[in-house]
């Protein structure tokens, strides 16, 4: 082996060794910074899949769903999930204007999630409602929801009613979950521009 061949061999071996030894330092330098910061919010059905969500419901029957959050904001986050109920005419949260519904929350669920962490909670709920009959036509004209049982807690509703939807031929109500996030600067919660909802046909 001549000196030139030794030189090449030594250069290759040195370069490989130097890279191996430098790898812990390079690992820190070559990490791409996180560029997208967001929160995931999901609902899963009773079988823990995105199907078979309760839709045709009856009074005083328990239904199960799962509500989850995934934090990709780069730091621990303090969330408040506001549970709201609306009928066809009441305002929903708006995805285009990114505003929350003006309806008052029935309940707030707090969730603290570490960065890159997830939070999930099973929700068992039931509606207690009654029908109002139209004496003239002898048909049901209105559904009055008296209360909602959510994970064992009773949420009293004052004067919530759903009227007959003639197009779909149902009494419809929407249970929706708005995501709010704690703002360190203001010391309060602000709407985090995410919500998810379930529509229910309230059957006899």
């Amino acid at each position: 082996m001549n000196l030139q061949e030794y030189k090449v061999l030594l250069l290759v071996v040195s370069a490989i060794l130097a890279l191996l030894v430098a790898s812990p330092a390079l690992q820190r330098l070559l990490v791409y910074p996180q560029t997208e910061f967001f929160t995931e919010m999901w609902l899963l059905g009773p079988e823990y899949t995105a199907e078979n969500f309760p839709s045709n419901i009856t009074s005083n029957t328990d239904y199960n769903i799962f509500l989850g959050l995934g934090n990709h904001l780069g730091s621990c986050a303090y969330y408040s999930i506001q549970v709201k109920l609306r009928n066809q005419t009441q305002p929903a949260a708006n995805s285009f204007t990114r505003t929350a519904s003006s309806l008052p929350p029935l309940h707030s669920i707090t969730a603290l999630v570490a960065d890159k962490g997830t939070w999930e909670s099973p929700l068992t709920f039931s509606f207690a409602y009654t029908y109002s009959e139209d004496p003239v036509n002898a048909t049901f004209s209105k559904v009055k929801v008296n209360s909602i049982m959510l994970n064992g807690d009773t949420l009293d509703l004052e004067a919530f009613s759903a009227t007959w939807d003639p197009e779909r031929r149902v009494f419809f109500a929407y249970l929706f979950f708005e995501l709010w996030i704690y703002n360190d600067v203001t010391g309060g919660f602000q709407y985090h521009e995410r919500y998810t909802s379930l529509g229910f046909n309230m059957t006899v």
Partner: protein
Amino acid sequence: MLRSKTPIALVIILLLSVTVVASPVWADQGTASAAISSAKNTIANCYTAAKEAEAAGANITVIVGTLNEAGSLLSQAELAYAANDFDTALNLATQSQNRLNNFVGGANTLRETAVQQQTQDFLINVVGSTIGTFAVIIASFAVWRFLKKKYDTTEAHPSESSRV
């Protein structure tokens, strides 16, 4: 005379009964409300401490679990308060706060440990690795010098012998 005093007496009795009967209810409501506000502040403070610990590189999974338990109790306290069940609201808000006793201290300890760990990691991974890389380069250069010297010596000998 007796007739004119009767309404006054009735008003006094009514006021007394309102004071005696109704005031504990208002006091309970106020206490429950204060306890809920206090629990909210405690959770917010603990959240800040947890966030700082996480920013320092600490694993906050366990303490976040504790915070969620406290948050759940607070939610229930708010529900009880909304249902005018102030005793339960007070009890749950107090439980929520108690759950967070020593939380900030624990989070700060986690943060300090994480800072120490980060410093140690920096020394080993960055400083150690940089020094190691330079050592490899210097060693390679030394080996190269040694090989070159050895080669030069072996090259020189045949020429000397040919002269002899």
